């Protein structure tokens, strides 16, 4: 029974990812007073891309071809780590938060390699920018998770979520507020959202993520797009699970799981609205200001870790 729910969670994160992307795009359009595309449009895009032909640059090697597969694979593994409706996940007992962070890093690493391998100038530029952003965001990502892990005395994600569930929702914890702020900034950087990267840009000189996928087409492109959608969905679900998990089912009853699912949908809807508002409200940071942005995240997460020392006497 537990396994079935875990598989369902992972499937929800994987299959629901394009929907999340579609809803965010629609909300942004509405905020900008446009009509916006249908929220199911990303599914249609994926379907279309899977039926198309894969065009491979003649100068590329095998790395170009396996990069999308590795990216997709690692992101799916990450999705299997995150508890959504109950305090466990498919791979929860197999690894701790380090594994989660570095699975994401693995996917990103191979995507950069693939972009470099594609041989285009924009691929190289996107890859170098991505390297900067990811190397700077790794520290706050890890530190905020470390702060939470110290408080919970557990290193696996499900354990941390379980600990948070047992706390009183009204006891505001300084560590959690700081870790939340830092994690939110890292989320924006990792998933390539404003103000770090503009996902809807068509100007190559402003691209980070989009620049890396310029050379891909057909099923490879579909896998990459899907992987980035899964990454966004998984990180949003991780944010909810780590900082606001109350409502998750504790037993195995269908009723509890249904309620948990409903609560999850409403929480993620709230986050999607917030994300759309933030993306529409701020301008994209110039590249030399991104280290500042991530530096602030690092300082805040470092402070969160220091605070755990003061809270846990």
């Amino acid at each position, binding site marked *: 029974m537990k396994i079935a729910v875990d598989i369902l969670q992972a499937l929800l994160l994987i299959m629901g990812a394009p929907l999340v992307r579609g809803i965010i795009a629609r909300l942004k359009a509405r905020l900008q007073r446009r009509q916006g595309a249908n929220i199911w449009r990303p599914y249609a895009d994926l379907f279309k891309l899977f039926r198309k032909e894969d065009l491979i640059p003649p100068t590329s090697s095998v790395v170009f071809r396996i990069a999308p597969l590795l990216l997709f694979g690692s992101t799916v593994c990450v999705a299997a780590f995150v508890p959504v409706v109950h305090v466990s996940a498919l791979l929860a007992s197999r690894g701790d938060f380090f594994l989660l962070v570095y699975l994401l890093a693995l996917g990103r690493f191979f995507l950069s390699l693939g972009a470099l391998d594609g041989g285009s100038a924009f691929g190289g530029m996107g890859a170098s920018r991505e390297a900067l952003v990811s190397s700077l965001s790794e520290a706050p990502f890890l530190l905020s998770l470390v702060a939470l892990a110290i408080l919970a005395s557990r290193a696996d994600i499900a354990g941390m979520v379980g600990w948070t569930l047992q706390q009183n929702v*009204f*006891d*505001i*914890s*300084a560590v959690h*507020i700081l870790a939340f*702020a830092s994690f939110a900034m890292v989320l924006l950087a990792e998933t390539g959202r404003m103000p770090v990267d503009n996902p809807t840009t068509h100007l190559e000189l402003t691209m980070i993520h989009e620049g890396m996928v310029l050379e891909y087409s057909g099923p490879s492109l579909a896998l990459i797009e899907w992987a980035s959608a899964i990454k966004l969905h998984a990180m949003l679900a991780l944010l909810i699970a780590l900082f606001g998990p109350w409502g998750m089912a504790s037993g195995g009853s269908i009723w509890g799981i249904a309620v948990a699912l409903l609560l999850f949908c409403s929480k993620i809807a709230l986050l999607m609205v917030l994300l759309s508002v933030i993306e529409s409200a701020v301008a994209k940071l110039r590249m030399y200001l991104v*280290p*500042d942005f991530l*530096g*602030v995240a*690092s*300082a*805040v997460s*470092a*402070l969160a870790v*220091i605070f755990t020392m*003061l809270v846990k006497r």
Partner: protein
Amino acid sequence: MGLVGIATEKVLSSFSVFLFLTILLMAVARRISTSVLLFSLQSVVITAEVLAIAFQEKLVEAYVVGVLVFMIKVVAIPRAFFLLTKKLKTVRDVKASTTPTQSVFIVALMIYLSYAAVHSYGQAIHVPVDALAAAVSLILTGAFLMVSRKKALMQMLGLLVLENGIFVAALITTFGMPLVIEIGIFFDILIGLLLMGIFTFRISDTFDHLDVSKLRRLRG
């Protein structure tokens, strides 16, 4: 205990977290208006704290002080700042001498230092260590803002944050001083700000800018 009672308890136990947040955000703020907004948020938190203590200790004087804090620091002073920025037509930028990253690290370091400093005193006086550390970090951050921000208006704001810190320290250790003294202190702060406002006008008139780091004629 009632809803008000619970709210009071929660305010008293967690207000220091919000004070830390406001000073961290002030460290990275890049516009004067943002900093002033953060200052008024800080004063709202302090007002809530004053009213919570008034409710818990049943002190009538504290209610008066709370209302005063609200009217002066949340309403009057930010409005005066916005008026000043509009009239002076100054550039909105804060002109910090440290990058946002450095500022946040420095403020984080100061928060840690204030915890270290109040550790021994907190035990002796039986006040929550968090609140005392929040007061000391407000004082240190106010001093830092005064030193690192080169606009005259930001120096005034740094001074106000410093006074906020001293006020919070007084509040949690002694539950407020005699009312007459508190009123006198507020009066002094107001007149001080008025004079500083007059001087910023004069600086702007005489020097055509508000960059106090360029006021270095008198040396030696």
